[in-house]
């Protein structure tokens, strides 16, 4: 108990003194996860919207598969990306293994099905509401998708934040493809795993607190930026 308390105190000290390692790891975590979520949202939102407005053979099965992929084991994703990017793999020539780019690729694969699924659920309800109006106005499929994406932007925000939560807290895949290299690919989650295994609890707890604070701060910042609560009538 005493050790945990001592660890907490040391952690607060590290945070308040803006420890160089801590700042470096935190910024890298933010960079990797925000980039991954931006890419996953750019893919997921249109796909979710397309699934909402389009009827085609096999649609139900497609949605079921996307929903199933939400539970994709990160370690398996890490293994897949590793095999693809390793020197003998099909994309080995790009030399991306053990770089932040490889970590972003892994996180995009993990977050995209989640964002598609949540987007689709939100936009499907909006489509049920708008269906007659948009058909009546003779809109094209592209116009319908764009309208749903714009008017359903708060549902998409929820999807993106869920994706961010999944990405920033992920450790298995990025450990495999990033390698947890100091000053290069070490992020908050992999650093916590490393420090815990070394018995360095104070830094591990400090990193854990920063990770939690980061997730809350990003959520609050985006909510505030888009005025989600103030504009709740929309």
């Amino acid at each position: 108990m005493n050790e945990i308390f001592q660890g907490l105190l040391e952690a607060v000290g590290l945070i308040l003194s803006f420890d160089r390692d801590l700042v470096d790891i935190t910024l890298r975590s933010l960079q990797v996860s925000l980039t991954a979520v931006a890419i996953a949202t750019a893919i997921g939102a249109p796909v979710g919207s397309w699934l909402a407005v389009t009827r085609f053979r096999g649609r139900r099965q497609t949605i079921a598969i996307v929903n199933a992929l939400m539970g994709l084991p990160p370690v398996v994703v890490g293994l897949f990306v590793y095999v693809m990017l390793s020197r003998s793999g099909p994309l080995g020539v790009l030399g991306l293994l053990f770089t932040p780019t490889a970590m972003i690729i892994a996180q995009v694969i993990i977050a995209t099905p989640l964002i598609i699924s949540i987007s689709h659920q939100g936009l499907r309800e909006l489509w049920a509401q708008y269906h007659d109006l948009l058909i009546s106005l003779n809109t094209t499929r592209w116009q319908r998708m764009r309208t749903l994406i714009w008017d359903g932007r708060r549902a998409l925000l929820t999807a993106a934040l869920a994706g961010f939560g999944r990405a920033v807290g992920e450790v298995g895949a990025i450990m495999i493809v990033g390698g947890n290299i100091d000053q290069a690919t070490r992020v908050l989650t992999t650093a916590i795993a490393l420090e815990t295994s070394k018995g360095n609890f104070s830094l591990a707890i400090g990193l854990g607190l920063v990770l939690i604070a980061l997730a809350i701060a990003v959520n609050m910042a985006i909510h505030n930026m888009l005025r989600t609560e103030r504009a709740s009538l929309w």
Partner: protein
Amino acid sequence: MKSILPGVVSNASARRRGVNLVGPVDLTVSGPGTTMIIGPNGSGKTSLLRMMHGLERVRSGTVSWAVPTEQARQHQAFVFQTPILMRRSVVDCIAYPLIVRGVPKKQARVAAAEWAQRVNLGDTLKQPASSLSGGERQKMTLARALVIKPELLFLDEPCASLDGRSTREIEDLLAQARADGTTIVMSTHDLGQARRMADDVVLLLHGRIHETGKAQEFFHNPSTDEGKSFLAGGIVE
């Protein structure tokens, strides 16, 4: 521009999940003026309007216009019984049909603001559409329909849940639209409204057209027993 009228419904019917919604019916809308579709609940008024506008698939027969259907749809608008509100401001809701037709946003907003003024919503331009009252919502959807200056306007019981004052405002706006050259096809179960507005009347019962003709003739001398009973306020089944 060539007129889309006459619109000819020929032996057309619509079904959904094996249930006949309306038809087979024959009806010609030539314009100008107001054709009022009346009948009790469940008689197929909404389905007939939706089928003519292309919102309900025609299962048998045809609905045709003087120009190709896709072109005809560009000159039609529809006002739904329950206003469909977009998650946008009032001005953006009214501007939307113009924007999807390729009008630049700024120009569309100016036109939308003018229409909002016309329907007495000039003070609510930047408010979310969902913050409007029932009467204001229906006026906004009417402005959204009229902003494209449709040649043919369908309205599905637009005053069904409105009070007298809001109903009068809507009727005044429709009279103005009619004077501006828009042909109106509207359903209602309010006989008073039908008397005030109709040039032609279609009485619909059990999905079939039971009686049709000039409003004056119909209201003074209906030709069927059901028509007489309906006008007398009787229960027509």
